[in-house]
């Protein structure tokens, strides 16, 4: 099968979409607007952190794999305000759930953006596995794929996100608006 010719501008727009959604949803998940997005695209490592949460957004037009690399210590600090408990008192499960919820919020919002513009996509369950499993992800050198890395951080505490976008049909994405609308704050419930 021949590889589809994809305009780099289209790939970059998808990359920016993930970045915009991620920082916005992270601030909401952590209920803290001080978190900022830091450029780390030059960082090259085989394993980024002890844990890795991943979620998939997939449809006819594209496939996005968002991976969030984190450790429990940092996650507890970030999740502490929303649980209303000291970081030390949070359980490991709660720290993981916080990151999973961030993945869910991000993927869910990306899905909403696409669906609002009549592009069907589905989202997977967020999974938490070991950061070491990053070595099992095959690097694909294709023109239809863009890989991105960025940090979401506040006061030295944060997560590192890696994002792989593969575009299958750029015509479906040509008119897409990637701007994020201001929404009313909703209460987030952690199960």
């Amino acid at each position, binding site marked *: 099968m021949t590889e589809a010719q994809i305009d780099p501008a289209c790939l970059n727009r998808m990359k920016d979409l993930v970045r915009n959604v991620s920082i916005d949803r992270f601030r909401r998940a952590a209920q803290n607007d001080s978190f900022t997005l830091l450029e780390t695209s030059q960082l090259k490592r*085989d*394993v980024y952190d*002890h844990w890795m949460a991943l979620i998939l957004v997939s449809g006819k037009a594209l496939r996005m794999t968002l991976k969030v690399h984190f450790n429990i210590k940092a996650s507890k600090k970030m999740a502490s305000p929303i649980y209303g408990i000291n970081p030390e008192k949070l359980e490991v499960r709660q720290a993981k759930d916080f990151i999973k919820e961030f993945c869910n919020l991000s993927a869910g919002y990306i899905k909403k953006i696409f669906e609002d513009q009549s592009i069907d996509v589905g989202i997977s369950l967020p999974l938490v596995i070991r950061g070491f499993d990053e*070595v099992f992800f095959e690097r694909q050198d294709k023109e239809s794929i863009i890989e991105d890395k960025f940090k979401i951080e506040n006061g030295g505490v944060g997560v590192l996100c890696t994002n792989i976008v593969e575009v299958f049909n750029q015509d479906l994405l040509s008119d897409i608006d990637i701007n994020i609308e201001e929404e009313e704050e909703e209460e987030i419930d952690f199960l």
Partner: protein
Amino acid sequence: MSEINKDLQATHKILTIVEQSKSHNDELLDKLPGVFAIVDEKAKILRGNLFLSGIFDCELEEIIEKDLSSIFSEEGWNIFQKKIIDVKDSDGKDEQFELELESKKDDESKSFYWYISKFSPSKKNDRDFYSIVGEDISELRKKEKQLMEIFSSIPLGILTVGSDKNIDPQYSQFTEYLLDRKDLEGKNFEEILFSYTSANGTPEEKEGVNNINASIGENELIFESLKSTFPTQVWYPIDNNLDGGRWLGISYQPVVYSGSVKRLLIICEDRTKIIQSEEALKDTQMLEDQSIQEFFKSKNQTKICFPSL
């Protein structure tokens, strides 16, 4: 509920089960005894276990990107690095070797047995990773040392005989003195210990030697029933020895696996002096008896000569 929703729920359920199962497997790796690590070509740790994080004195989550070389001495790391290169250059051949690890906590070196193998995550990933497993054998070495000290200092001949009836390589140092020879390893035990007895012993002693041979590899119960016939004291001739040889006191202990005697532990002691003094005592006793008999004999003769007295 639509069919798609049911399928989705089922898929989500199975994914959750797989996630939990993977998590349990990862925990098993975390708790592996000894060192477990996956490192890259520069020996940066990508995956470690709790034992390794203990050596680094850090949390398991902090071990990623740490330098494995930092737990070795400079000389030790040169050896270890060479082994990694050997694994890299060889086509899929693993390396196994023993190397000490210096403990930061108590400044004490611990012996580890290392296994290094190449780890390839996928065909498309051209990076070389290495799986490292280190087994702490310091306790084993300590026990071996203690055992060696016993073997080198105890004045007993201790040796084991395998199922092939030959003497095992490990025997006490005193055995060489006792038997006046050094080439004991791999020799037939009967030829070494009982050649004189087999040629010149009593029929019971000869049968006893045959019974030792027969009992190795046999059932433990058969061994126990034959044990009483085994010779417990034999003459061992030695050339150029003042006494012409030694009297050996011998005891036997079976080494039993799954009910059968796989090895025989033989303990020999030098009983020459005891036997010599016993014989000397016998001689003295005999002389004493003779002189008493002669005294009474002469006394009786005196009585005959002088009956009126």
